[in-house]
């Protein structure tokens, strides 16, 4: 077990390094350069621009920048924003909680709704409830996030005035974004749980359970559900990815704080250190979560535990 974990951690580090290099290169290839957003090329003289570029070090060749960046990174220095020489790491740490809250809330929402509907629709296959659940599930993954977000916003904060339209302070501001994002996650989970439930119900041991005289309720909720849910644990890892991605859009729609918005802005502004920082950071988070998921998985699922 320990052995496997060590292995995973090592490869994870590799992965993280890899992703940051990748992003670095992509960002390096972005046309134009950060200076444009600092200074008005129409009025600035070439000299001004040149000096500025030099100060920012963006006139160095790729390998030089790369080396420099990783040198710093190893020392835990994520660098400073090109726009306002703000250190990146504190910036991320400042904004991450908001994103985390959003991700957590929506994950929770999607898990609760998803599992509930998934199970119901599997048990009542082809009954009305099943139809509803499946449609909800499909809608969840079929609507453009920003659209559903704005719709919710119009209804609940502008027309009904129940919830705040924007901000990231207090649970109230969390409701709408989480709901929007949860819709996606929920969609995935409904479908997944439904499918794995239907598979489990075909397993042989279900017959055994019936032959023991257990009630259908006991069979479904005590045995089938548990078997069906174990695989969905792995979904959590995937979900985190989804949520981080979703945050990019949602945080803009509901003008919440968060790393999603930072990185979106940074990409547009070619603020390389920030983009880098966020991606490396979210990569770490992603890898960490998945590592935890895998480990916990091997505890939840006796089969895996034995294999490990």
């Amino acid at each position, binding site marked *: 077990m320990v052995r496997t974990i060590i292995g995973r951690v090592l490869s994870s580090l590799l992965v993280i390094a*890899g992703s940051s290099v990748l992003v670095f290169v992509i960002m390096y290839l972005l046309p134009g350069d950060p200076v444009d957003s600092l200074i008005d090329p129409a009025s600035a003289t070439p000299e001004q621009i040149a000096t500025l570029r030099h100060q920012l070090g963006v006139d160095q060749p790729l390998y030089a920048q790369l080396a420099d960046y990783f040198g710093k990174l190893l020392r835990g220095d994520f660098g400073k924003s090109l726009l306002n020489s703000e250190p990146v790491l504190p910036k991320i740490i400042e904004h991450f909680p908001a994103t985390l809250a959003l991700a957590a809330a929506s994950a929770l929402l999607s898990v609760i709704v998803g599992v509930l509907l998934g199970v119901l629709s599997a048990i009542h296959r082809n009954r009305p409830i099943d139809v509803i659940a499946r449609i909800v599930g499909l809608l969840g993954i*079929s609507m*453009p996030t920003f659209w559903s977000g704005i719709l919710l916003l119009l209804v609940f904060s502008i027309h009904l005035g129940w919830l705040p339209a924007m901000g990231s302070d207090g649970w109230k501001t969390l409701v709408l974004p989480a709901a929007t994002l949860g819709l996606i996650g929920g969609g995935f989970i409904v479908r997944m749980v439904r499918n794995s439930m239907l598979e489990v119900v075909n397993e042989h041991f279900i017959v055994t359970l019936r032959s023991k005289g257990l009630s259908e309720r006991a069979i479904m909720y005590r045995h089938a559900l548990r078997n069906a849910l174990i695989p969905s644990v792995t979904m959590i890892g995937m979900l985190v990815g989804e949520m981080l991605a979703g945050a990019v859009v949602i945080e803009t729609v509901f003008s919440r704080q968060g790393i999603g918005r930072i990185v979106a802005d940074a990409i547009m502004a070619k603020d390389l250190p920030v983009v880098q920082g966020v991606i490396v950071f979210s990569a770490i988070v992603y890898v960490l979560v998945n590592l935890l998921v895998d480990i916990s998985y091997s505890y939840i699922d006796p089969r895996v535990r034995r294999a490990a």
Partner: protein
Amino acid sequence: MRESATAKALLQKRKWELPALRSSGRRFDLSRLFAAGAVAVIAFIVLCAIVPQWIAPYPPTEMMTDSIMQAPSAAHPFGTDYFGRDVFSLVVYGSRDSLFIGLMSVVVGGLVGGTLGALSGYIGGRLDSVAMRLVDTLMTIPGILLALAIAAAMGPSLTNIVLAVAAAAIPGYARVMRGQTMSINGRPYITAARSIGVTRFGIFWRHVLPNSLSPLLVMSTLGIGSSILAGSGLSFLGLGLLKEIPDWGTLLSQGRGYLTVAWWICTFPGLAITLLVLAVNIVGDWLRDYLDPKKKEA
């Protein structure tokens, strides 16, 4: 669960013995009804994409500046937008690029990812571990960010958006294809082929590949939907297409500012996207069940 080969064979036999055992029941199965509807929807949208001029009442770019933001009416079933363009016609014509984005990015992503996965799954060894690290790497970067970066890097042209979205989808395809290739590679008929003396490539090409494709197929179908969504996401973040005839994502994200004053401008493109994605997802699900040997008997 591990099962002895004999056991497997016996299980097989049980299914053989009674096809009915796994049938989904006397109640009429809805997923077929769904699928039928979905296919119809897709068919219509494809029709729109191919011969919009047969369906659209107005040329999509015609600006009736004296009748802007008209609510839906007989003349303009979906109303008119802030240029005075007929929204219905726009949606009809817009289907083209939306479909294109959906399909092409799946094709590209599927090809690249699929090949990568298949090779690393079949050849294994160092190649495999390298490829998989690469995939893991891509995986850690939220797809939309990758797409965002790429789109930002290359500018919002149709091809670039396709590439951006495709790139984000590659890891998924690679993973699935790899897994599938590996499991197929373990099948007895592969051993059989080897025992006959078929070359490594021959086995890959004639046996492994053909048998590995169905999950990829399913995933691609579902992928069409997510690609279209990703595309519209890019439009929202200001990296969308800006062509004379806008795609649905662009229509939606541009119209969203008018939601309170002229809801129809973005609602109909939005519905179009949702409907299409819904449809491909349904077809995808159906396809999966249909191709899944476990559910075959159903």
